[in-house]
């Protein structure tokens, strides 16, 4: 099929006053993007300084392994999350089979499990000394070296772990895309003789491509930035090498150079993602003339669909939660009680505030790019989104440096001018923490909003403007209702991500400010995994709250949409 591309109205048609408004908007967006890019730039600037020569040593010793592992990790996680995310999204949105409605939200559950936790859970269960292999040896009388058992603590093992917890990113975005697709287009494909699968592969899938690309890019960025899991599994990646160079050799500059190399890696991802979206403006998203009639599956196909959708939930959620529950019952966190409530409150509050802040910023920036399409805004967005692929510790230090510089400069200025100092205004406050989350998770908000905006045809804007609406009015009355689902999705993902976030929280937080993730880390890093299980379970439980809420909101949205459409 050919793409219908709607160009924005020629510039001459805009009234001068509006032009000024657009200019301000774009300037604001670029300013925001710059503020968000600051920590990343501070890392790149560090990398440009002459280093102590550790980088040469790294190239000679560990770099080849880093590259092989990083490429392998990306290939595995990319393919894995795409296949699981897209396949299950298609099944639950466009087919009907027993349990499909339930599975539709069960498939989101692994999102609430931190990657390092699923890693601990599976390692504990499958290690040589763990219950599975011990039982096997008990049954067979084998001892060490008598039998082969898959080694989970390896590249494929860590890739599997990350795939299991990251596929929901693809699933969420792909499902939203499929829900928004015009039934007419799919039905047209069917009347032209395509079967249900043909319609999927030749029409549905290509139309959802921007959303799928955005989801896979998020999953890959998260995989590249992961530290806890790869370190525990003994797999050398960019992240572990950055930590070793910086903490072990004390070479900050070589570590920053590695981080910059990682950024180059990510830029390749970004280019691929942009290529996947190029020129895709289908603009069929809002013209839903009729209810979507799902395909009722025959018993054999339905059984297959149930298994296909249940497996990711089983391995990504049920098994690790069962393993955690076993550990918890074995001897949970001694602090379970009022203290825990306090941790949970902190976690919830931070995640909620961050979700609002990050989604609002993401929507604003993505919106500016729609009003002023061009290389500058697009580039600004991409650079501001790159924080998602940078290990949290690197981001945190990248944040400490400009904040500290600002605080000390302000303090120096007030001392010189008024004779009293302000001290540290931002460093070590909740503001610094929220700034860290904004830098780290902006991509998560921009992705869904952008792909949502992509689906609203420019003719809508044009029609609304012809009817006398201001650009703001168009945003409020036309785009906002159409974007609600994308915004909710973005808020959900940011909330859960902040709940799980550890490295930046650990370093940037104020005094005596503990969250659930911090509590889990403290116990796990002390190798008290059984005690850490309690906090992990509470993280999962809190993560479920927004998953359930937002799933319900989206379901209501759909019902309303169907009412309007029919």
């Amino acid at each position, binding site marked *: 099929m050919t793409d219908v591309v709607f160009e924005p109205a020629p510039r001459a048609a805009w009234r001068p006053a509006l032009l000024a408004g657009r200019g301000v908007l774009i300037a604001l967006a670029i300013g925001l993007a710059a503020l968000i890019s600051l920590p990343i730039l501070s890392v790149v600037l560090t990398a440009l300084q002459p280093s102590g020569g550790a980088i040469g040593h790294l190239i000679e010793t560990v770099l080849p392994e880093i590259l092989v592992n990083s490429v392998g990790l990306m290939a595995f996680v990319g393919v894995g999350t795409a296949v699981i995310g897209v396949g299950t999204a298609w099944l639950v949105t466009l087919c009907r089979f027993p349990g499909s409605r339930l599975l539709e939200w069960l498939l989101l559950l692994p999102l609430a499990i931190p990657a390092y936790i699923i890693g601990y859970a599976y390692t504990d269960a499958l290690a040589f000394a763990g219950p599975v292999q011990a039982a096997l040896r008990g049954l067979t009388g084998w001892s060490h070296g008598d039998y082969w058992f898959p080694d989970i603590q390896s590249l494929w093992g860590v890739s599997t772990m990350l795939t299991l917890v990251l596929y929901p990113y693809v699933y969420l975005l792909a499902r939203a895309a499929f829900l928004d697709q015009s039934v007419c287009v799919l039905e047209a494909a069917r009347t032209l003789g395509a079967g249900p699968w043909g319609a999927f592969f030749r029409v549905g899938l290509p139309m959802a491509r921007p959303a799928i690309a955005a989801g896979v890019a998020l999953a890959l960025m998260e995989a590249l930035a992961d530290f806890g899991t790869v370190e525990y599994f003994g797999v050398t990646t960019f992240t572990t090498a950055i930590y070793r160079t910086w903490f072990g050799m004390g070479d900050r500059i070589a570590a920053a150079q590695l981080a910059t190399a990682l950024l180059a890696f990510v830029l390749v991802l970004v280019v691929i993602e942009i290529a996947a979206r190029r020129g895709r403006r289908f603009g069929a998203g809002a013209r839903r003339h009729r209810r979507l009639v799902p395909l009722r599956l025959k018993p054999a196909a339905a059984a297959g669909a149930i298994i296909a959708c249940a497996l990711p939930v089983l391995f990504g959620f049920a098994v690790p939660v069962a393993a955690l529950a076993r550990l918890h019952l074995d001897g949970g966190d001694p602090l379970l009680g009022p203290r825990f409530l306090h941790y949970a409150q902190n976690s919830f509050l931070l995640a909620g505030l961050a979700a609002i802040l990050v989604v609002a910023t993401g929507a604003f920036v993505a919106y500016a790019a729609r009003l002023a399409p061009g290389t500058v805004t697009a580039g600004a967005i991409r650079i501001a989104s790159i924080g998602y692929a940078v290990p949290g510790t690197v981001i945190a*230090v990248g944040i400490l440096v400009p904040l500290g510089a600002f605080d000390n400069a302000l303090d120096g200025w007030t001392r010189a001018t008024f004779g009293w100092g302000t001290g540290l205004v931002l460093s070590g406050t909740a503001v610094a923490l929220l700034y860290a989350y904004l830098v780290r998770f902006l991509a998560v908000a921009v992705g869904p909003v952008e792909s949502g905006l992509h689906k609203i045809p420019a003719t809508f804007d044009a029609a609304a403007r012809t009817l006398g609406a201001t650009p703001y009015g168009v945003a409020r009355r036309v785009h906002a209702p159409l974007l609600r689902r994308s915004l909710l999705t973005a808020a959900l993902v940011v909330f859960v991500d902040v709940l799980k976030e550890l490295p930046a929280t650990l370093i940037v937080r104020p005094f*005596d400010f503990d969250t659930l993730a911090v509590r889990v880390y403290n116990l796990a890093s*002390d190798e008290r995994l059984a005690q850490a299980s309690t906090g992990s379970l509470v993280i999962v439980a809190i993560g479920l709250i927004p998953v359930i809420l937002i799933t319900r909101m989206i379901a209501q949205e759909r019902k309303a949409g169907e009412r309007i459409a029919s």
Partner: protein
Amino acid sequence: MTLSPTRRALLGGAALVVAAPALLRAQTRVLNLYSSRHYDTDEALYAEFTKATGITVNRVEAQPDPLMERMRSEGANSPADVLVTVDAGRIERAREAGLLQPFASEALASRIPASYRDPDGHWFGFSTRARVLLVAKERVADGAIATYEDLADPKWKGKVVIRSSTNVYNQSLTGSILAAHGADKTEAWAKGVVANFARPPRGGDTDQIKAVAAGEADIAVANTYYFGGLARSTKPEDKAIVEKIRVVFPNQGDRGTHVNISAAGIARHAKNLEAARAYLEYLSTAAAQRYFAFGNSEYPAVTGVDWPPEVAAWGKFKADGLNAGVFAKNNAEALKIMDRAGWK
């Protein structure tokens, strides 16, 4: 390390805790701690200190290097009064970066052995942990392995488990080998150890001990307090692990067993200087030392403080007298050597 009770330590400590409130009357009553320790049992330490002095302890707990970066970027306005690490390498790096100030304390100098503190008083070790060999009782004969050097002996091929070189305890251990033997021999040693790995390095110290108990390997290298944690446990599976393991203190015939420290120093820009000094001296009191030892199965740094039963059960040993600052300075070179040897 000998177990002779020194009354002076006890009396000095008691006098200090009694006198501290009077000393601090004019000060702000807070102490800001940047700490890499994260043990629940340390809370008793803070509570005791607050009870004795009226000073509230505020904490940020995180990994040492990022904490140092935070101090660095906060500059002269940094609220940190005291930096605490769980390894000599990190606290020495903080000293090199100019983040600490010297503290000339007679009490600390008299109580803490010289090898556990910076000669100029920038940092002091308050508890110690030995990096020992934990061997399978059934498969490794008494005396069959006696030194760190033996870990590279080809007769242990496929029998050794130890965690990644990313881990600072291994960097410090290799740093102490470096101090004893020089770069070339240390690299040959590291290659020999790698050749003896039963599996690629992964997991934590406890995982290495579990691997030996399960029969995956015969010799694990780990810090004493991890084994202490298992020894204190009431769980049957932990008891079963401890049953199968014998603790070997390496190099008793020559330089002694490598010992690392958990250390603290006063931040260069400390705003609550008196409180910081009082806190450091409090950490050397017998009461505080007992919290370290009994709470986390560590060895007290101050001689004469009794050991917890599970630790005392392993017996006395000779500790390597190498100053912690020396192997700490060797961290970076040690890691490069391990990289070249293929120690992941």
